[in-house]
């Protein structure tokens, strides 16, 4: 019977925590990635490395705790909502990971999920689902598990709980002065947090808008990821009209170092939707290879499973454009004197003042005179190890062509389109950065000054400068951490609103933006705590009372 119960417990554990919870967490995370967090990308190698490290350490912590629980506790942890599934532990385990916190298996599991969220590049999983699970875990442990454990182990568990923290491995052998000072005046604390979060919002939102607009200008160039762009001589950006003979594709493909090449038609035109006109880039791409086509699809008609499935009278168009005109899948739009069915929505395909519409190149050949013999641009992807400069020179041996690397072409296009907009936005970023940083500094500084007399008392009682600096630093860091979390959440909401509701604008919050904001905040923490500490150290305690 005991063996059966252990097996049942193991099965429930594996099914619930090995399959259901991770699946649901990732699913929910992905849902958030595609909606609320669509502007946030977790694709930095450092985040991957961090994710692997967290997954491994979380898994190891979980395994070590489980092993200790079974071996020393002589039982299992499968007790759900106070119902004992497998035989429960007979002895209280208080060493190893259990000496660090009372629920190391929960902590290890959540760290593991956080790591997975980073590894799969899902900000939704890492930033929203895991914190939500932490909250649920906390409530579950408080309401169900801890009372059961207290009932089972009595005073021993109560003493253990007094000594060892529940989840976060914080020391319990010191007066939590920083936390007390912060929470001692809840209204003031909330006001501080609101101030800090708005400052973080101001900084991160300005940077998000700048970065979003900057990458918006070259979104097509960046995402098609062609290494070399080939146009007619004299054309060096994505705005000017170009015409390249069709044979160029084969010519380029024959050049040593070129892996593949593909031609596109990129035409700036007016799109008629419900009798309203919008400026769009129509890009006709080779639907068979998919090269030059959209890179991220949203909702599509049932028959459209990818960018290769586009039929003759169908187009894929930017989701924001569709949203603005209340277009739905299957609706009709007109351009080049023809009517097309909206077969799907594309993501990240909005540029300054215009959006992208994609159609099958073969259709373009039929409806636009002259396009049968030429492309506007030829995109080339070079072979691994080939020298980019050499390839460009070889392409330009054809004196009718101009070949540019992706970064050159993007810079030229950005220079042309962003010449007015980007300096303005950069000014906004600098202002936002200054105002936000100063707000953070002043908020933290004034909150310290409010208790300056008390710090003078501490000094009078023998607190050293280092102790006082540590105390002020902890207070400021806790405030900044909470303020930054709230500020980034607000920024994500603001970005989401902008991306969805404000035509022609994109806001992009990435790890770099978050890091820049946090670094600005940390610099302000150092300043705003350093100055009062310096004053405290210089002043006699008696003078501090009088300040």
């Amino acid at each position: 019977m005991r063996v059966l119960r252990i097996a049942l417990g193991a099965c429930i554990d594996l099914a619930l925590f090995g399959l259901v919870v991770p699946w649901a967490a990732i699913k929910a995370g992905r849902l958030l990635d595609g909606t609320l967090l669509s502007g946030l990308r977790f694709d930095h190698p450092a985040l991957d490395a961090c994710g692997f490290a967290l997954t491994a350490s979380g898994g190891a912590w979980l395994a070590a705790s489980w092993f200790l629980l079974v071996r020393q506790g002589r039982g299992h942890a499968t007790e759900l909502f106070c119902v004992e599934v497998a035989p429960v532990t007979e002895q209280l385990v208080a060493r190893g990971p259990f000496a660090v916190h009372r629920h190391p298996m929960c902590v290890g599991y959540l760290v593991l999920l956080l790591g997975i969220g980073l590894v799969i590049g899902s900000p939704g999983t890492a930033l929203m689902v895991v914190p939500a699970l932490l909250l649920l875990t906390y409530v579950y442990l408080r309401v169900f598990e801890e009372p059961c454990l207290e009932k089972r182990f009595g005073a021993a568990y109560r003493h253990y709980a007094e000594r060892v923290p529940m989840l976060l491995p914080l020391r319990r052998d010191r007066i939590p002065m920083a936390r007390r000072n912060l929470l001692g005046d809840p209204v003031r604390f909330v006001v501080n947090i609101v101030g800090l979060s708005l400052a973080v919002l101001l900084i991160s939102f300005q940077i998000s808008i700048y970065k979003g607009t900057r990458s918006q200008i070259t979104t097509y160039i960046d995402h098609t990821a062609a290494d070399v762009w080939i146009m007619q001589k004299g054309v060096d950006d994505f705005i000017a009209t170009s015409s390249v003979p069709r044979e160029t594709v084969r010519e380029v493909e024959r050049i040593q170092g070129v892996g593949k090449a593909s031609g596109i038609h990129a035409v700036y035109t007016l799109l008629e939707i419900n009798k309203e006109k919008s400026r769009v880039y129509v890009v006709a791409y080779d639907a068979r290879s998919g090269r030059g086509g959209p890179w991220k699809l949203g909702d599509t008609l049932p028959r459209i499973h990818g960018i290769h499935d586009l039929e003759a009278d169908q187009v894929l168009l930017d989701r924001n454009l569709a949203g603005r005109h209340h277009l739905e899948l299957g609706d009709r739009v007109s351009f080049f004197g023809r009517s097309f069915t909206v077969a799907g929505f594309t993501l990240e395909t909005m540029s300054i003042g215009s959006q992208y519409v994609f159609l099958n190149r073969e259709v373009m050949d039929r409806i636009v005179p002259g396009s049968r013999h030429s492309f506007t641009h030829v995109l080339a992807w070079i072979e691994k190890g080939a020298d980019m400069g050499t390839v460009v020179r070889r392409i330009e041996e054809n004196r009718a062509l101009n070949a540019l690397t992706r970064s050159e072409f993007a810079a030229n296009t950005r220079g042309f389109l962003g010449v007015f907009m980007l300096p303005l936005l950069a000014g906004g970023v600098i202002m936002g950065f200054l105002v936000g940083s100063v707000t953070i500094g002043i908020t933290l500084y004034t909150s310290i000054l409010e208790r300056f007399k008390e710090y003078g008392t501490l000094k009078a009682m023998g607190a050293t400068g280092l102790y006082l600096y540590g105390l002020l630093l902890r207070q400021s860091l806790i405030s900044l951490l909470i303020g930054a979390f709230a500020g980034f959440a607000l920024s994500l909401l603001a970005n989401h609103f902008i991306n969805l509701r404000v035509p022609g604008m994109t806001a992009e919050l990435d790890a770099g933006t978050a890091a820049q904001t946090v670094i600005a905040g940390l610099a302000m923490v150092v300043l705003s705590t350093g100055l009062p500490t310096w004053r405290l150290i210089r002043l006699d305690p008696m003078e501090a009372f009088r300040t």
Partner: protein
Amino acid sequence: MRPVVEGHNLVRVFGRGDKRVAAVDDVSVHVDGDELVILMGPSGSGKTTLLAMLGCLLRPSSGHVRVLGKDVGSLSSRPLSRLRSESIGFVFQGFNLLSALSAWENVAVVGSFPGVRLGPLRSRAVELLEEIGLGHRVEHYPAELSAGEKQRVAFVRALFHRPGILFADEPTANLDTDNRRIILNLLRQAVDERNLSVVLATHDERIERFGDRVLRIEDGRLVA
């Protein structure tokens, strides 16, 4: 017997130029072990300034202070902090309790600076609070205590680290008659039973009888 605290030719000047005021002007004083010295003077006479200089809370403009044989002027910041946290207790007129900490934490905080674990500190703080009849108030915050209770907590805090000398600046100024008597008895008891030296600054003539010795200060100078 070697004095516990000595002040030699102490001068403390506040302000600059025309606004220059000598709050304490050439005062020499000493306090021996196990004695309660009353520093009596009217408001603005310089007693708080003198007390602060003797208690290492304020540097003199000139002159020097020795506490338990150590020349305070020669101490750098860290040894001075250690001297305050190990050897000196201070009771302030305005209590100066830390508003975010409970009664026992206010008492124990002084012991936590050197990195002592909280467990033993808590036991001792609670024990001391119980001794002065505040056993039922250990978890209360300053805002929840009466003025008399606050001053008793401040008094226990000043004794917590077993100092050699305790300075009390108008400790009874904000208290009613009953609480004044309690605090003064506690101070007297501390001198008689704990071998502590106490310097008590006050303007209240009624307190004079509690002291072993009375020093009178007027306009920054000792007059008797």
